[in-house]
């Protein structure tokens, strides 16, 4: 019998090599206790969490927890069914109402994860002989949506309006086109020039979908995302998002004003052919979304924290992926895999958790230590993180290696 897993032998050897070097497995972290949105116990050690995407710190919000507890008691642990069969409860409808109010849009559809929302929307909107035009740095869920559908897939250079224009110009004018953009690109933490990109897409009669997974909660006057801050709400046809970042639980969604939107519930396979979210999860999400509408102070604090971390790392000599803090993601550029792993390991041993990112998840083959900031981080926690980054760099000889 051919071993079907033999094709992964290279990766298995690489991963094993990493671990025999005596460092902790960056992909095997276990949170033994979670103390708050910003702190957990990992291997018995008190650890500051700086890689959770829990931007607005809603995971332990008392109102959110209470809503979840009530729904768990009243509606049970799960729906055991699809949204289009037995899996739509009152809680799911209330969650969709909360989304419609948050985004001021006519329609909302809740998926079981953000990944499935992109998978479903991208694969369903553009069909055979139509085109998906996507940014080169798009998230895996968008690429996978392309792979699942039947459209022709055209990729433009990251955040380049000029390149998007060039590629749209080459397509047949009459063909259906879906331009897929993200408000915040989560690897480098850079934001998209949505004003320019949307203008070009609309000039070529394309439908525009924007993924605001990493922008919801703190960009724009109502926290709708980068597209709101950029003032292009009237040019965006579909907004996709997630509950697993600012909202603080799990799930995905799409909102839109398209008059025929509701038919998607029957034709979008990642929506139809899976079980719906547990009632407690959507109840948590609905409460959290409604609270996020009024979280102006939290937003402000999140930006303060972000500036503090970005400026502090820069002042300590670290190379960052963006010149200024563009989002609540601050990515530290690393020279190579070995140094990245050693830096990451030194940080976790000192009680700081960040994400380690490497190709092919990262663009242009870069190695990153990715920090995502929470509105609930205290200034003294950020100062501790900065000090430990400097200590870790000294311990691993980072600046020597980079010089």
């Amino acid at each position, binding site marked *: 019998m051919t071993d079907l897993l033999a094709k992964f032998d290279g990766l298995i050897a690489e991963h094993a090599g990493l671990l025999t070097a005596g460092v902790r497995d960056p992909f095997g972290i276990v949170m033994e206790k979670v103390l708050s949105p910003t702190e957990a116990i990992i291997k018995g050690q008190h650890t500051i969490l700086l890689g959770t995407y829990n931007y607005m710190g809603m995971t332990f919000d008392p109102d959110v927890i209470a809503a979840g507890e009530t729904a768990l008691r009243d509606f049970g642990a799960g729906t055991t069914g699809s949204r289009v069969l037995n899996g739509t409860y009152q809680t799911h409808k209330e969650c969709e109402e909360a989304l419609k109010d948050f985004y001021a849009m006519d329609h909302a559809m809740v998926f079981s994860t953000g990944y499935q929302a992109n998978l479903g929307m991208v694969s369903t909107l553009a069909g055979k002989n139509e085109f998906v035009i996507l940014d*080169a740095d798009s998230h895996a869920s968008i690429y996978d949506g392309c792979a699942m559908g039947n459209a022709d897939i055209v*990729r433009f250079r990251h955040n380049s309006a000029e*390149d998007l224009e060039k590629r749209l110009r080459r397509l047949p004018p009459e063909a259906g086109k879906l331009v897929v953009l993200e408000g915040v690109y989560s690897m480098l933490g850079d934001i998209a020039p949505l004003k320019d990109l949307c203008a070009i897409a609309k000039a070529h009669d394309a439908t525009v979908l924007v993924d605001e997974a990493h922008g919801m909660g703190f960009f724009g006057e109502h926290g709708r995302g980068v597209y709101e801050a950029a003032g292009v709400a009237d040019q965006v046809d579909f907004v996709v998002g997630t509950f697993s970042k600012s909202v603080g639980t799990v799930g995905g969604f799409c909102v839109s004003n398209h008059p025929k939107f509701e038919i998607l519930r029957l034709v979008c396979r990642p929506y139809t052919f899976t079980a719906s979210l547990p009632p407690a999860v959507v109840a948590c999400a609905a409460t959290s979304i409604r609270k996020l509408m009024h979280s102006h102070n939290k937003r402000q604090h999140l930006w303060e924290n972000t500036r503090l971390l970005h400026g502090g790392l820069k002042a300590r000599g670290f190379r960052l992926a963006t010149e200024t803090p563009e989002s609540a993601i601050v990515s530290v550029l690393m020279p190579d895999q070995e140094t990245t792993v050693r830096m990451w390991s030194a940080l976790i041993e000192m009680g700081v958790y960040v994400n380690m990112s490497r190709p092919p998840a990262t663009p*242009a083959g870069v190695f990153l230590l990715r920090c995502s900031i929470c509105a609930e981080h205290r200034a003294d926690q950020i100062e501790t993180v900065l000090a430990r980054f400097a200590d870790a760099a000294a311990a691993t000889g980072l600046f020597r290696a980079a010089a």
Partner: protein
Amino acid sequence: MTNRDAIYARILELIEPINAKGVPLAEGTTFAGDMELDSLTVMDLVANIEDEWDIVMPLNMLPDLETIGQVADAVAKLAK
């Protein structure tokens, strides 16, 4: 030199900078197998090829384009 020959020659020039392993390039050289290119590098190469001939080469074509010769054939067809 026919059009196909010119295209093939130019593709070799576009590939040279990403041929980190220094693999000898021929019609039958494969991108994933012989050159060990990852998918991102291949997609960046496609963008350069699209711009060189002002064509659209959708990413969903890529699974059928394993060798340099197959890419040259595809470009020759698309660039007409």
